[in-house]
């Protein structure tokens, strides 16, 4: 077993995995890494299962010291990571020697970094997952949904000798500003014609009111003309439009059911990119049909297997 001690943390530094499944009919949210793609690459670097528990570090402010020689992996945002002051770029596995300090300072590119360990970081499974959901008091190191805190110990059981990088052609480009793909939903036709034009032809600015439940998009107010809805299940990435007309993209910690009309849902790849955007970022939306989005996702997942 290898251990690391947390020297600094914030409420936005959380143990996460792919999320909690099979219990949503009980009102239990999904949780899990907001950028599933970076989590998967971090695990891939060490030869792990892609969904093993990782540390999600949002915006920085996280520091650990190695209690033994460790081999770890980093993917996702560049949060100005340094090992004893030396710059550490993401998308690679690396050695952290006993006594060395790994520090995440501030966002240089992207918003969320993922730190993985061989065999995954140790944490109890609560309702089938270690994903930390603070609001529901589920998951995390103690199983009670507590964010990672100064003084806590991270540990892992696995071993690997894999020191490698994510191949350049597979490394997600977090600077990319192509539109985010939106799978059109059932209520799309109930918005006004002008609104349907505006959704896909005007820019949307990420509001600072953003967390793991959802991100509000600011722009032209959209107008829903259909009947009021009865609450129904909400998928990951659903883009709902409350009466003020400003869409909200619902993320991993969203409530399980809700009654606002929806434009549809972002694809997993669009969500992975959105999770790396800071407040104030401008994004655009692009319609995509379900079958095409499905094919693209299946093709993308193939990359983790082909390597």
């Amino acid at each position, binding site marked *: 077993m290898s251990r690391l001690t947390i020297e600094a943390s914030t409420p936005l530094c959380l143990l996460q995995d792919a999320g909690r499944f099979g219990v949503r*009919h009980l009102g*239990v949210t999904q949780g899990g890494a907001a950028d599933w793609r970076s989590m998967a690459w971090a695990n891939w670097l060490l030869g792990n299962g892609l969904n093993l528990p990782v540390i999600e570090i949002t915006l920085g402010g996280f520091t650990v010291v190695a209690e033994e020689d460790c081999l770890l992996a980093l993917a996702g945002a560049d949060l100005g990571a340094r090992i004893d002051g030396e710059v550490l770029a993401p998308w690679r596995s690396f050695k952290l020697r006993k006594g060395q300090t790994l520090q995440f300072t501030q966002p240089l590119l992207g918003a969320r970094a993922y730190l993985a360990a061989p065999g995954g970081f140790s944490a109890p499974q609560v309702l089938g997952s270690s994903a930390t959901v603070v609001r529901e008091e589920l998951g995390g190191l103690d199983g009670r949904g507590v964010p990672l805190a100064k003084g806590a110990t991270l540990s892992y059981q696995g071993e690997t000798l894999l020191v490698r990088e994510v191949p350049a052609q597979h490394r997600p480009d977090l600077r990319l500003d192509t539109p985010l793909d939106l799978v059109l939903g059932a209520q799309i036709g109930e918005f006004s014609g002008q609104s349907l034009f505006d959704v896909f032809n005007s820019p949307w600015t990420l509001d600072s009111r953003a967390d793991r439940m959802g991100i509000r998009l600011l722009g032209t107010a959209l107008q829903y003309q259909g009947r009021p809805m009865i609450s*129904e*299940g909400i998928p990951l990435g659903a883009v709902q439009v409350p009466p003020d007309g400003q869409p909200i993209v619902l993320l991993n910690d969203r409530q399980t059911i809700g009654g606002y009309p929806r434009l549809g849902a972002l694809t997993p790849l669009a969500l992975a990119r959105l999770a790396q955007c800071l407040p104030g970022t401008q994004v655009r939306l692009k319609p995509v049909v379900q079958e095409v989005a499905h094919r693209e996702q299946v093709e993308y997942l193939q990359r983790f297997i082909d390597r």
Partner: protein
Amino acid sequence: MNPRVEVVALDCLMLRLFDEIAEANMPWMLAASERLRAAFGAHLIDLVPSYTTLMVHYDLTALNPNQARELIAEALIDLSPNARTGGQCHVLPVWYDLSVGPELSLLSRRSGLAVEEVIRRHSAREYQVFALGFAPGFAFMGLVEEVLAAPRLNTPRKKVAAGSVGIAERQTAAYPVVSPGGWNLIGRTPARLFDRNREGYSLMQPGDTVRFEAVSHAEFINLGGDDTPLEALA
């Protein structure tokens, strides 16, 4: 019933069975849930029931959208309502008191009924669990008598005590854990509504029925209830 399948996400389809909330929906909803669970088997990631819909989240690596639609269509062939719903009937003890249920007086004023009569009527009916949501184990139940219906508070409370029993429109519910909330509070139950160590985790499951039973302060405490007044939580 007029079942329709709608796209909601890359790997989710919505099965819409009804257009209105009604207690008579439940036997159909339960029958359809059972069929869908059987049809999708290991490829089902989550099935999220609500009042009139069932959201199917399936494994996108195993099924494409067309295959998922076919499975849903097959599951609905010759669907008939579950005569015996299979749901459990729960009796939830409630200490109805102004210190833990301050809107008892509001509901009494709105309805023109005495507080005792509000309590009697709330605890006289057997309610259906329509859906769980908002928080783990939070069951939306109904329907309460029209005369007891009241809109949510204009300003939700920042903290509602665990076990708080409330009314919103014609629905009633109990808060499993301390949380913010805008329902009209009328009492508190000592029942543990969500327990990670219990089989099935949630006391109430979709399709169950619930009756509230008024208990005295002494019984409430005996059953493990916490009588901290609402104001003391703020």
